[in-house]
């Protein structure tokens, strides 16, 4: 049967793409011999629904991907922060894309509008980005975007929420294996950013701002250009943008001014400013250099010595211990709402939020909901 042969070859392709052997997958499925799987992949054995459901889990795909294979189009790419090839990168990419698709589905099931209007966000003047003085241009643009998005004087406080709720960028926090960075992408499901939930909060803020720059300049620079050996100019531009975006010039000058005594700022003063803007000490030092508030050599020396970084780690330890983000609060909220309104089943909710079925009652309680309460009540508003 052509449909079944297609499924068989798709299963083989998925396994091979993940670098898994027949034996490894068979063991995970609980098969007594790898030949059972081999027969499935060659189309010589009927596949049970439960076997396909388990294989889908192992391969990080939705079961519908195998049940109704679409015309294979070129899969979207992630612009990784750290493009170094890693054997787990493919798995992370699949999981990320899977959640992005689910995010879009939840919006659709709940009748929520996709708020994203990418065209109005795009940074149009590519020629300016290629000029020698592009750093100044990008810093100026960061300030324009701050105003456009109404992020206020401490942008870190509301950055993730504004990008998600107001712009409609899908932000997903996932615990990424060592060596795998976050990244961004634009695909059928819209704009999306992947952030490593293991990173410190101030690092995550910087990553968000950095990736936001890539999204607004997505059409201007092909991924290969950004991946050019070493840190490309575009990556540097993204860092300049993130720095100016999270640390508005006027505000930084004001705070530094307040803390200067006899032309000097103390060690504690710097850490307090970094905490105030929720950025790393290193990012703050570079921002001070760019604003001519600190000598470049002093900053480089300090960063190399690592003293401030050590102090930062100790004093901000409490922030790291704060509960790490999981997926995204908006995504979780959409999934819980869909469940309570009877738009998705409980087992589907478990799939959407990446939990085991039996963990759902506890998961709901942790988010302030009870499985047995009726949340379908509606109120009239005038």
């Amino acid at each position, binding site marked *: *049967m052509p*449909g*079944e042969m297609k*499924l068989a070859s798709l299963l083989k392709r998925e396994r091979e793409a993940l670098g898994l052997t027949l034996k490894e997958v068979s063991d995970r499925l609980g098969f007594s011999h790898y030949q059972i799987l081999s027969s499935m992949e060659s189309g010589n054995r*009927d*596949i*049970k*629904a*439960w076997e*396909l*459901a*388990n294989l*889908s*889990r192992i391969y990080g795909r939705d*079961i*519908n991907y195998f*049940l*109704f294979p679409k015309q294979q189009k070129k899969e979207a790419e992630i612009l990784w922060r750290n493009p170094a090839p890693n054997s787990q990168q493919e798995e992370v990419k699949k999981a990320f894309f899977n959640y992005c698709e689910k995010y879009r*589905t939840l919006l*659709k*099931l709940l009748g929520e509008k996709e708020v994203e209007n990418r065209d109005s966000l795009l940074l149009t003047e590519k020629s300016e980005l290629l000029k020698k003085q592009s750093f100044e241009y990008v810093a100026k643009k960061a300030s324009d975007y701050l105003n456009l998005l109404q992020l206020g004087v401490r942008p870190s406080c509301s950055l993730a929420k504004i990008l998600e709720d107001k712009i409609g960028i899908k932000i997903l926090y996932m615990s990424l294996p060592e060596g795998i960075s976050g990244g961004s992408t634009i695909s059928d499901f819209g704009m999306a950013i992947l952030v490593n939930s293991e990173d410190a909060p101030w690092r995550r803020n910087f990553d968000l701002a950095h990736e936001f720059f890539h999204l607004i300049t997505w059409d201007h620079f092909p991924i290969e250009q950004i991946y050019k050996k070493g840190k490309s100019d575009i990556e540097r531009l993204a860092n300049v943008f993130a720095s100016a975006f999270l640390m508005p010039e006027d505000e930084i000058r004001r705070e530094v001014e307040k803390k200067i005594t006899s032309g000097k700022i103390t060690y504690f003063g710097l850490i307090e400013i970094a905490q105030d803007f929720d950025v790393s000490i290193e990012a703050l030092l570079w921002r001070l250099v760019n604003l001519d508030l600190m000598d470049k050599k002093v900053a480089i020396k300090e960063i190399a010595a690592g003293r401030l970084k050590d102090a930062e780690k100790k004093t901000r330890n409490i922030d790291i211990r704060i509960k790490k983000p999981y997926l995204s609060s908006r995504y979780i909220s959409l999934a819980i709402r869909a469940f309570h309104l*009877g*738009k*998705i*089943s*409980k*087992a*589907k909710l*478990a*799939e959407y939020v990446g939990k*085991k*079925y*039996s*963990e759902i*009652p*506890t998961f709901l309680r942790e988010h302030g909901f009870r*499985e*047995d309460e*009726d949340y379908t009540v509606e109120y009239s508003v005038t």
Partner: protein
Amino acid sequence: MASVRTRIIQLNIVLLDADVIIDLHRLGIWEQIVKRNQVKISSIILRQEVYFYEDEQGKRHNIDLLKDAGIKFQELSIEVTIMRDFIKQFDRNIQEELHPGELEALSIIQDDKGLCFCTSDKMAIKALALIGSSSQGISFEQLLKSSGIAKKIEYKHTIEYFKKSLGEGSIMRIQSGRIK
């Protein structure tokens, strides 16, 4: 001569959803139910969903069902082609709303008119009505009653909740053009 009181208990041939299995264990009445009914469980629910339950304090209590498959209950599975044909009857939303375990269970129910489906999941109950199998649905409360068991149960397990959800599913079947 001592009189013997007997109660007629209706034997259900019933396919159980994950939620029902878990709460039967939580309430400590699993053994009674499998003794008094012909219990069946679909493979995906058996193999992917029911491993443990957590109490109010978050403590895990393991459920090892696989050891009893074929002894205390029967495992039912379908082939991928059957599942695909079942899904094809509906619009694409059904794939987003229901888990493969529920799709497998509903596919079995549609194929075997002698089988009841016991679930407390709103979307699964709605889907039962959507496939035109409302009469094959049975609530947790009904299952307990027909097995002669009285227990305090949550609202989602009541006949009232089941009927209300079936009603929503029937409207979906009539109005929304979900069936191709």
